């Protein structure tokens, strides 16, 4: 479905992504794991096209020069030069790191912004779906998003991404700063999204353990390069992975 080949990103002279090739098939959950500065967010930005925006902004402000090379195909089409807005329209929807909600707007408004591209019927349908997926949101549709707890905010963020009718959902560190209980709730919800629809999901996380049970295929990034990849079972049996990303020896 989404396939990146030889993706390279330079921030000025620093190599942030080094020859990364990843692919995500239909209705698959792909995990991307790595420590801070491994290149997870850069990868997510490159896939969703936000990187083109950042590059343009930096160029205008005379800041860092960002170089982006490689091939990126989505459903067989080359999307390397596609604008982020067009990519969202095509179905690649990013749920950004640190949630980036519209803090001064209510939960309902946040969700409606997400459904801007959808038709009215589609939006109503996805709204119902988000509400059944996260029943906790039903009671707080009028509250301001900025004053919700971290977990609730993350629910709104995922809900907002779902409202945009994604074909592939990019979740960038959805579990950041959440309690184990909340992590489990969210992960169950992500699994449900995959089971109940035909959406593919790419999820990035630092600590693999809570996410690992639901992924079909995973990549492990180190210093911008994919050092290991494989199905869940293959990686589970690998002693290096175990010690580094699960805290088990």
């Amino acid at each position, binding site marked *: 479905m989404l396939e990146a080949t030889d993706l*390279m990103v*330079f921030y*000025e*002279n620093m190599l942030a992504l080094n020859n990364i090739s990843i692919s995500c098939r239909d209705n698959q959950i792909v995990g991307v794991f790595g420590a801070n500065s491994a290149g997870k967010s850069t990868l997510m930005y490159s896939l969703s096209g936000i990187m083109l925006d950042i590059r343009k902004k930096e160029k*205008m*402000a*005379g*800041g860092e*020069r960002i*170089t*982006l*090379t*490689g*091939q990126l195909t989505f459903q067989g089409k*080359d999307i*390397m*030069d596609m604008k982020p807005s067009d990519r969202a329209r095509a179905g690649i929807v990013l749920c950004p790191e640190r949630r980036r909600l519209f803090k001064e707007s209510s939960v309902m408004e946040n969700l409606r912004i997400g459904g801007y591209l959808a038709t009215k019927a589609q939006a109503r349908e996805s709204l119902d779906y988000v509400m059944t997926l996260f029943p906790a949101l039903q009671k707080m549709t009028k509250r301001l998003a900025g004053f919700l707890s971290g977990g609730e905010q993350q629910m709104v963020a995922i809900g907002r991404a779902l409202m945009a009718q994604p074909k592939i959902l990019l979740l960038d560190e959805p579990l950041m700063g959440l309690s184990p209980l909340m992590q489990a709730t969210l992960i169950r919800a992500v699994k449900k999204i995959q089971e109940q629809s035909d959406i593919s999901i790419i999820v990035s996380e630092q600590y693999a353990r809570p996410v690992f049970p639901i992924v079909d295929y995973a990549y492990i990034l180190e210093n911008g390069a994919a050092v290991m990849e494989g199905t869940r079972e293959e990686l589970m049996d690998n002693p290096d992975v175990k010690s580094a990303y699960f805290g088990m020896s």
Partner: protein
Amino acid sequence: MSSQTRRKERIDRGIKVRSEGLYALMSWREMAYLILPRFMLIAGLLCLPFLMPGMYWQRVISIVCIYAIVAISFDFLAHYVGLVCLGGAFFIGTGGYIAGIFNAYFGMPPVLTIPLAAIAGGAFCTLLLLPCLPLRGVYFAIVTLMYPLFMARIIEAFDIFGGTDGILGIDSFPSAFVEQYFVVGILLVFVFGLRRLVTTDMGLIFTAVMDNDQAVRASGINITYYKAMAVFIASAMGCLAGACLTHIYMWSGISQFALDFSILPIAATVIGGAGTLVGPVIGCLILVPVSELLRDFGTLRIVFYATILVAFILFRSDGIMAFAKRKYEQIERWTQI
């Protein structure tokens, strides 16, 4: 895009590392790297009065320096303290009127009125801006934009200090030579003084207030005090410039509260490079003479002016200074990926 196999990389020349602190003393070359750009600025500014043909352009140099002082005070407040202050005209007008009053009504010589206008004007401006200090961003900008209008209307309505005619019969500088070198000297002192100030502990707090005032408050620092301090420094600079302006024109009137003094320094800061402190000076050196040259076009002057500004914001929003600095410190070359 995908066929791209080359990219442009930037390599540091190492000038900054080699010429910082004690390392600069290693060789003459290192010292030259450090001193030459600054020397060029100082020598250039000091030579300007000699290079100008005729009285008219020498006067323009003084005006450039006045605008430059207001511009660096704006740059300091906006990019080192985080207070976007559109009140350049407020500072100029206050300083100008204080100098005018003390000179014309009390007979004080310019040697006394200029420092007095700086201190008293700075205190007055700070006092009036004190209630607005908790405001941030555009709200502070609007309030500071209102003050010059407010002052001008008060003087007009109550007919005080000469009303619409302004204060006449103010002493001028002893000679054109003294006038130019005084403002050039003051400008240089302020540029290098402020550059020093922003690297001290106090400057560190100013920058921190801009970045995250809650964190600064959490460190047990009274941010209102530091903001007031910064406003006092900036407004004292502006008032001093205003006092010089009064003595140059031998007149102070409500046109010193005109919007020009608020807008042009900002334009100069954008063109010269925001947050560099030297940039605004260079911006003024370009903008003020350009504006004088465009005088023949009458009202269309503003159109040319606005076009230049928009072009700069669109294509070089980091400004001349940041661009020049990068060219000085880095080289660019193509490499294979």
